[in-house]
């Protein structure tokens, strides 16, 4: 049988999804006494709750209860979080609201329509407080305080020093510096959050169905908040999740809120979030201000970097934050060989929606300043940006490459990938075209970005938010464990159970491909169960769908569990056939002998004997065929004394070249061509790979041009519908060309690396570089996003006005 790993097989998930037979959270059956919830939310960004009058709401026929923060508090501890600042985060406001959309009361009623009726009748009296939304101003001594007991709006601050930064800055020919702002945006999966929670008082346990996809370390956070032993919190995720891109990790506070609502109401409670709730109060990416300084030589060589980064986690710091700041810690210097690095990292709170995972998490925030400064260096030195990039790129012979901050880049050929991007995009030709166009008053630009795409997070990285001394006082964290179970039933058919909580990435398909290859059986015979159940699935704290960890970790667990099954079948075969194990191999669902072609024993017989006739098995062997493998990569070590941390397992590479034209009249940016070169090691299924890349790229495009969760300076939320929060639709998608090179990872058994987030990280800055390149003759530079026509037009007119004044 041919290898199926690496081939573009179509997906097993598709048949059900194309016929309306998908099972999303809102499609699963609920017990007959299930009630429905609507949530009353704060209309103020910052206010004291004076009183909540629920009397009218309770009179609405069909209402079973109206529950306020005060009642819920009795059943909860605040959620734990990985910083030492004592921020008390509950899933509902208790005495104060801190962002528009924060839950204030939960209505439980016979259906959602009735619940919404009642929600209208809840009277909340607020005493407004001064709001604060600005990242830098919130750090001021006299800024309004969100959490009085914390004493400041800074939730975490750490400084890191690697190499000899002072020397680099003293010796450099020049210093290039700038301030950048990356906006708050989201990913808006088309399916919103959905939860069905049930409390069983006879055993004091909660069962929660939710479209939550991990990280499952949060299961312990939830159990802690609910004040129960963790095995009394059972989380079951549905077979299908309607997209997430990280955002649905933020279901967890609502899972806890609904759990307690179920307990108080005395019945199961279901809640499907609506779109306005999703935009205002689910979760979002983290907005960041970065001050970046580069110490540079005349030839464009960067000797050292200083970065002061300020992450805005919104009103409460909550898990997995402050991970946005640290996820990319190991790859802070990106694709460049820069040994001297200083990082000053702040995590601040403001009166905005709390943040969490999002596709690219930390990457877009990091690469926006980094790749912008590379271009600014080139412009300052009158060099081509290509030359500056090439001068600094890590060379092929340097792999595995250890970064200044402790990353171990496993493999890559960055120079080749960049060259492929330039050749595919015809860089030189475009430069000529751009010159000619300028003569005709047309504005063309080209932007580049070279980024390292980390995947498979090391669970130890988040502890870098603590000082080495603080870390020493707690238990160390390491690894990136993922688990899978491969079993064969009495008739020889295969079931696989995975815990990677797919949200559309086709894990069932790729899992079947891998197991088919190992056991040499048709993939159609393999049934993959992806519905994670914390009471019955093999899972770890790291389990789930985030950090592109399926290709690097999930697939490895599946592969090695299948290998265990193979090993057992070989042992059974050797014993039964009386042939040495080394002489046997698998082909076409049978065990064959290398030396004797007359020997052929169907796999299903071998598997069957383990069930039907266990006494025939080799001495001491367990009956049954049921093998679980827990996989972790050795290189996921905890941070060391010097704050060196390899925050991810594998590191892919993306080289982008994008060309744009800008309409001088309207400021509209049109993307002419988008070229993206990927190196994600060995590709497991190229069809799925390219689908992931398109999706990630278009999300990056949205971040560059359209998407922003906007607030006014008073903290009022401005983008509560899809008419205000703009997502790219089909006509906005430019020509996209994807090319691959494959330098297999030496770290993972299949040589695969994660992917699908790379362009979400690279596209915002690649496009910003293209726009800056286009507007260079006008003296306009880009340091914030999204690049709406409004913004470009304003920048252009300001510059024009300034230029006229100069003359």
């Amino acid at each position, binding site marked *: 049988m041919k290898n199926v790993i690496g081939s573009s097989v*179509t*997906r097993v*998930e*598709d*048949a059900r*999804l*194309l*016929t*309306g*037979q*998908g099972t*999303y959270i*809102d*499609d699963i059956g609920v017990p007959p006494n299930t009630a429905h919830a609507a949530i009353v939310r704060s209309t103020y960004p910052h206010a004291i709750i004076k009183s909540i009058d629920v009397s009218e709401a309770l009179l609405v026929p069909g209402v079973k209860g109206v529950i306020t923060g005060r009642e819920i508090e009795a059943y909860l501890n605040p959620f734990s979080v990985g910083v030492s600042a004592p921020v008390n985060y509950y899933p509902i406001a208790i005495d104060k609201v801190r962002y528009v959309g924060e839950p204030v009361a939960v209505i439980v009623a016979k259906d959602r*329509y009735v619940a919404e009726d009642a929600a209208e009748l809840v009277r909340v009296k607020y005493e407004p407080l001064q709001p604060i939304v600005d990242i830098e101003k919130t750090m001021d001594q006299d800024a309004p305080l969100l959490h009085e007991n914390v004493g400041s709006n800074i939730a975490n601050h750490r400084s890191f020093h690697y190499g000899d930064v002072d020397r680099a800055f003293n010796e450099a020919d020049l210093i290039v510096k700038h301030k950048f702002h990356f906006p708050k945006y989201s*990913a*808006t*999966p*088309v*399916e*919103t959050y959905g939860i069905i929670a049930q409390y069983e008082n006879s055993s004091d346990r909660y069962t929660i169905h939710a479209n939550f996809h991990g990280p499952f370390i949060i299961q312990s956070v939830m159990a802690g908040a609910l004040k129960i032993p963790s095995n009394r919190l059972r989380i079951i995720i549905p077979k*299908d*999740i*309607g*997209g997430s*891109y990280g955002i649905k990790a933020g279901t967890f506070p609502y899972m806890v809120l609904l759990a307690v609502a179920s307990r108080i109401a005395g019945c199961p409670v279901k809640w*499907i979030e*609506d*779109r306005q709730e999703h935009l205002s109060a689910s979760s979002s990416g983290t907005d960041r201000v970065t001050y970046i300084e580069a110490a540079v030589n005349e030839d464009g060589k960067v000797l050292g970097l200083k970065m002061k980064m300020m992450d805005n986690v919104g009103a409460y710091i909550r898990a997995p934050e402050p991970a946005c700041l640290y996820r990319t810690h190991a790859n802070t210097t990106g694709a460049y060989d820069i040994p001297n690095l200083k990082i000053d990292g702040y995590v601040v709170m403001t009166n905005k929606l709390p943040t969490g995972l999002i596709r690219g998490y930390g990457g877009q925030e990091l690469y926006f300043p980094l790749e912008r400064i590379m271009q600014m260096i080139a412009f300052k030195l009158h060099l081509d940006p290509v030359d500056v990039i090439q001068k600094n790129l890590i060379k092929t012979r340097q792999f595995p490459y250890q970064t200044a901050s402790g990353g171990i880049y496993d493999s890559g050929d960055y120079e080749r990938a960049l060259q492929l991007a330039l050749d595919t995009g015809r860089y030189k030709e475009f430069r000529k075209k751009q010159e000619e166009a300028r003569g005709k008053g047309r504005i063309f630009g080209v932007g580049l970005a070279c980024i390292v795409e980390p995947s498979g997070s090391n669970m130890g990285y988040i502890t870098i938010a603590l000082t080495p001394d603080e870390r020493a006082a707690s238990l160390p964290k390491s690894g990136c464990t993922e688990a899978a179970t491969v079993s064969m039933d009495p008739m020889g058919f295969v079931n696989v159970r995975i815990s990677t909580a797919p*949200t*559309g*990435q*086709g894990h069932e398909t790729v899992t079947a491909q891998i197991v088919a290859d190992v056991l040499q059986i048709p993939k159609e015979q393999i049934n993959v169960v992806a519905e994670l159940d914390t009471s019955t699935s093999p899972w770890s704290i790291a389990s789930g769908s985030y950090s592109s960890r399926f290709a690097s970790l999930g697939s490895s667990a599946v592969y090695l569990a299948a290998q265990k099954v193979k090993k057992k079948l070989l042992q059974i075969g050797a014993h039964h056939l009386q042939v040495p194990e080394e002489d046997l191999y698998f082909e076409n669902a049978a065990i064959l002998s290398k030396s004797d072609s007359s020997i052929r024993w169907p796999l299903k017989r071998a598997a069957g004997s383990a069930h039907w006739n266990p006494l025939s098995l080799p001495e001491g062997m367990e009956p049954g065929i049921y093998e679980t493998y827990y996989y972790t990569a050795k290189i996921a070590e905890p941070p060391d004394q010097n704050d060196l941390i390899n925050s991810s397992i594998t590191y892919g590479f993306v080289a982008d070249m994008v060309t744009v034209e800008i309409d001088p009249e309207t400021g509209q940016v049109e993307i002419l061509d988008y070229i993206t070169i990927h190196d994600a090691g060995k590709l497991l299924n190229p*069809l*799925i790979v*390219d*689908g*992931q890349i*398109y*999706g*990630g*790229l*278009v*999300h990056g495009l949205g971040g560059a041009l359209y998407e922003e969760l906007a607030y006014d300076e008073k903290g009022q939320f401005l983008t509560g*519908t*899809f*008419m205000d929060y703009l*997502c790219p*639709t*089909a*006509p906005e*998608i430019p020509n*996209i060309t994807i090319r691959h090179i494959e330098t297999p990872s030496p770290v993972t058994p299949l040589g695969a690396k994660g992917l699908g987030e790379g362009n979400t990280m690279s596209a915002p800055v690649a496009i910003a570089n293209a726009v800056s390149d286009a507007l260079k003759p006008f003296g306009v530079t880009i340091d914030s996003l999204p690049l709406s026509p409004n913004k470009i037009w304003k920048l252009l007119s300001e510059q024009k006005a300034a230029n006229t004044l100069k003359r």
Partner: protein
Amino acid sequence: MGVHQVKLTINGKTVVEGVESRTLLSDFIRDGCGLTGTHVGCEHGVCGSCTVIVDGAAVRSCLMFAVQADGLEIETVEGLSQNGELGPLQKNFKECHGLQCGFCTPGILMSATDYLSKHPEPTTRELKEMLSGHLCRCTGYDGILKAIQKTVEENKETIS
């Protein structure tokens, strides 16, 4: 809340039900008729995931009340295949990787079905315009467009 009796056809089957006047057609299709293939993503007419065909026109079922569908003929994604066999458009979605999470897919299938029945030879630009009424956050629309274009090509071959 007053309850009205409605009689309508869904995927060829007659349905007679009592509905409140404020019940959305999308909720009625999902909860009243149990056809959960029709999805709800925004309830304000932008995402397109709730699209069904009502009397031969693609309609956002979140923008219609169930009572307004009284006497009308509705087609949902469940009606696109026979006995679990995928139709040509569905097959091409699978082949061209036109879906990932699949949440937006039923709405897009219904819009495309309606559109192709009226515009057998659309240009890429026209198809993109048609798709602009749908949000897909997974695919970047590439596989979707390819799947529909492939269907157009195949249809041409069958006709000629």
